[in-house]
């Protein structure tokens, strides 16, 4: 549950701990979620392309969720 009293936005150096705590008791892979979250920000920053992001996590997302419907799929990308 989010804390409505939180007085500020989380600085980036503290964010990863929060992300891990957020996913700690989720029934899906916590490490995958944190890594994807980190790299999704890198995509937003322009440090990584949508296609690179999609390809990097495609197999892991398929393994974890049985599907990969992320909108980052590059044209011509073939699902396994």
């Amino acid at each position: 549950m989010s804390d409505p009293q939180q007085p500020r936005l989380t600085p980036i150096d503290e964010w990863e701990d929060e992300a891990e705590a957020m996913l700690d008791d989720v029934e899906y892979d916590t490490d995958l979620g944190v890594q994807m979250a980190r790299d999704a920000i890198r995509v937003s920053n322009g440090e990584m392309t949508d296609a690179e992001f999609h390809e990097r996590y495609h197999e892991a997302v398929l393994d974890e969720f049985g599907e990969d419907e992320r909108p980052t799929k590059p044209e011509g990308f073939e699902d396994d």
Partner: protein
Amino acid sequence: MTKHGLVIDQERCIGCQACAVSCKQENNVPMGQFWNRVLTEGGEKMDTPSGGYPEDGGSGSLDMQYQPTACQHCENAPCVKVCPVNATYTRDDGIVEIDYDKCIGCRYCMAACPYNARVFNWDEPEHMPEGGTGDVEARPQGVVEKCTFCSHRVDEGLDPACVVNCPADARIFGDLDDESSTVSKYIDTYETDQLLEDRGTDPNTYYISGEMSPGRPQTSDKMESELEDVSPWSDGDDVPSEEADSTGAESSGGSHSLSGGEIPYATSAKSGGDD
């Protein structure tokens, strides 16, 4: 194309929480959850300033500003990129929404959101009154939810509930792709920031600080979006003149329409929270 965006004038915001409360009411947000929070820029805790009290006849350095924060409806939304089932998606009009039927509650989107704008229904949501409030169906247990810019209202041509219920007229909603819209004019005219710009998310929510804007135009007893022509600069002039600024233009009686180059009255003020 239309790209919906929000401007929040921090110089006008008085931290009254009306936006947070009206959001909860309108969107049937469960007990214990908030889609819209009013954070404090300044001290470490809510409603506390940074700096110190005056000493030895000095002026002191107390400083505080309110920063209402909800989903920023980012152009490069990381939450959208990580959703494995495409439950979080961006509409053609720029609003980031969640398909609650698709959401599997993995919470990857929550981890990816730099603004802590999303909440998760751990338990069966509770509402007060039990039947819920507002015009939006309750979301089930096990899904993530967040601000939608009141898309159900926007689809009807209305402004979001937080916008129409802000008593300080600090929230202005409109089409960022329309150069003549009030939001676009304000972004062009006033100093604006987006939150956490270094993340590259390019939010469609902008914050005015420094110089106070005229705020949300109050030109009629109708909603802004119900009017065809409500911009304070609707006569085609660019920004209000100094003369217009100093005189203001208060509407009178039952008719709230403005004519010519009149602008909504707003007291000029420097940065808020200095006192």
